[in-house]
């Protein structure tokens, strides 16, 4: 009863009950980890978690659009690596200027997004299959292009000025960029025609089509936007971790999707929250930092994010069942 009253409070309603709870979880996690781990509260740890949150955040924002249309994209992680490898290899081995390399990264992401989107929207191939296939294509293409070598991006002092997008000295500039992009995404999703149609077609594609809307175009656009954000994610990945190796990236699919569904975006489509995704991403990033700080291996992170995805989707299924 009290819970219901809280939920119906206008301020709570506006902010979203789910998002408030998630924010609480995030703060609680931070407090607990700070108590358990020496110096966890300090800047180095926080910066490290932020580095993780940036690239994962862009991936998660991207996939939010796809999931909003009722689709799914399991290629984002490997495509991100593909973007970073192709652009990085162009930079280091072909002498392509830095600025152009960054653009190449984004273009590669957009091409993959358009490829997935075209097959899903126009050719009606199930998104699950399409993205599974393009995940392998992305890995393969990256390996072929780089002759299976890893690529290291230059340090800030040696021409790697793109790193200033991540941080300048000790100032985490990345967070400003990330929030700016997230706000742009939120506006796109909630205040433009594209967002309106993406969400609507995710909820009831046929009804939107029969309203005279070109649903294929808008559905494809969601994948293209996702690709664009994956391209940006790649830049933030190398900005934080410098080196990329071909053949990896799968694990970030799950983490990005976890951040998204945890934030209240429904896997069934039609419901999406950018704000939720942002908080979800921070939780995942803090979690990974915490797990490492507590001395566990990365494997535990896999287990926990897997469980988070299942729980979040299960909660969504239950909520929909109750509504019906």
């Amino acid at each position, binding site marked *: 009863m009290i819970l219901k009253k809280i939920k119906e409070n206008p301020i709570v309603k506006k902010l979203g009950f789910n998002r408030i709870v998630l924010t609480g979880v995030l703060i609680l996690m931070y407090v607990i980890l700070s108590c358990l781990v020496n110096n966890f509260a300090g800047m180095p740890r926080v910066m490290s978690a932020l580095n993780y949150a940036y690239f994962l955040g862009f991936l998660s924002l991207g996939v939010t659009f796809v999931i909003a249309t009722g689709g799914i994209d399991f290629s984002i992680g490997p495509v991100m690596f593909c973007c970073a490898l192709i652009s990085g290899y162009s930079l280091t081995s072909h002498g392509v200027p830095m600025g152009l390399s960054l653009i190449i990264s984004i273009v590669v992401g957009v091409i993959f997004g358009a490829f997935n989107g075209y097959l899903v929207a126009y050719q009606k191939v199930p998104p699950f299959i399409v993205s599974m296939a393009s995940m392998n294509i992305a890995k393969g293409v990256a390996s072929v292009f780089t002759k299976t070598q890893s690529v290291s991006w230059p340090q800030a002092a040696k021409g790697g000025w793109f790193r200033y997008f991540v941080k300048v000295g000790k100032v985490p500039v990345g967070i400003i960029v990330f929030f700016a992009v997230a706000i742009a995404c939120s506006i796109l999703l909630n205040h433009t025609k594209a967002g309106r149609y993406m969400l609507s077609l995710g909820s009831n594609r046929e009804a939107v089509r029969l309203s*005279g809307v070109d649903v294929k175009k808008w559905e494809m656009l969601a994948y293209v936007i996702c690709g664009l954000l994956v391209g940006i994610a790649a830049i933030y990945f190398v900005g934080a971790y410098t080196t990329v190796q071909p053949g990896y990236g799968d694990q970030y699919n799950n983490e990005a999707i976890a951040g998204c569904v945890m934030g209240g975006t429904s896997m069934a489509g039609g419901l999406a929250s950018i704000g939720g995704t942002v908080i979800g991403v921070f939780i995942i990033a803090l979690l990974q930092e915490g797990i490492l700080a507590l001395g566990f291996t990365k494997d535990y992170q896999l287990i926990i994010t897997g469980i988070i995805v299942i729980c979040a989707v299960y909660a969504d299924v239950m909520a929909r069942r109750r509504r019906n």
Partner: protein
Amino acid sequence: MGEVILQMKDIDKSFPGVHALDHVSFSVEKGEVHALMGENGAGKSTLMKVLTGIYTKDSGTITYEGKEVEFHNAREAQAAGVVIVHQELNMVGHLNVAQNIFIGREFKKGIKIDDKKMIEESRKLFEKLNIDIDPTATMSDLTVGKQQMCEIAKAISHDAKVIIFDEPTAALTEAEIQDLFKIIRDLREQQLGIVYISHRMDEIKVITDRVTVMRDGCYVGTLITKDCTKDDIVNMMVGRVIYEEPKTKSMVSEDAPVVLKVEHLNAGKMVQDVSFELHKGEILGFSGLMGAGRTETARAIFGADPKESGDIYVNGEKVVINSPEDAVKAGIGYLSEDRKRFGIVVQKTIAENTTMANLSEFMKGIFINKKKEKKIAKELADSLATKMPSVDELVVNLSGGNQQKVVIAKWLCKNCDILIFDEPTRGIDVGAKNEIYKLMNKLASEGKSIIMISSEMTEILRMSDRIVVMCEGKKTGELRIEETTQEKIMNFATRDVG
């Protein structure tokens, strides 16, 4: 009249905020067909769900075969002999008929399923019921009518003593309805108690012995069917007379301008060489039986499904329509028979649904002008008398009639001059039905032109200025309302088109 086999007494059931059943009593005798009527939300379904244990009653007693009982789920009720034949059939399409009938209690031979015996048993069952269905046929190949017969056979095979039919004729053709009635009469002969839930007044008069009417969760009364008139029943249902007389004269002159002309339209088996004209301000009824190809014709015109050939003219000009987008641009709006699937986006608000077809008009640069959107949606909702807390309400929370109004608002917002209403009042209760009718008349008088596909004869006769009748994908007749009789329509609708 036989002895009472089932007696529900003083049944009370509340859900949070709703008193769904207010001390309702209801009884069924052996060898009678007892109609249960009432508007949507009157409590019929709730009562039947309490009976079969899907809901638990708050108070009251159920006496079945002289003993007080309380079923905890549908399976228990079924085992005791109380079975519901649902509106939506619960059949597994790719299994055969016999496998469906014995699903969940298959005969076994060792660990193998004994298909042969199931087929044999099904055959016996069908013989007993005088049903002509091959037990080895695949379920999905059967017509809806035949599938329903299987459902009934399944109920009988459970040794049912009380069978509840929930809107059994909603998806049946006239011939199938007659077959169903024959079976129901047979069952009555065999001293079963039958509960018959339906909105179709004509059927109630034909098939039932008694009628119990419910309204707003209360028991209103029980009548002997042959001693009462339709109006008596309707009055009990709504507390007022609602059925208007059929239209006898069209107010649209024959030389009113033609706004839509369809010539030699072909789209698969269901649309063969269909041609007709729609005049300005007219309601053109499309009559015919289920599967006559009326919806398919509408969808082909609207570009929702591909067409093979045929020309469409809007206001005298030829238009190419290959997608709903083209149709909407040409000023055509389509209101589907299946609102939930094709009409509304339930997770979006009333305002968002209203502007769905015309969002371009609500843009301020790249942003949606939500203020204007809400304002227009509010105006439209007010003019349609949509009952809602606000335009920010999600459409999922509205009743069927109000959802239909939201769909209408969507097309009015787009300012479509040609509206295709496909079964505009399906699943809408009697009171709201009347409102939709009034609205359609108002729209027509304002110069909109309407195509109304309807399977209800009364609706066709009451609303149409002219009537096109279809049968098996072909147009078989066209009538002006002045010359129309039910018999004429039926004649065209069942005509042997060879």
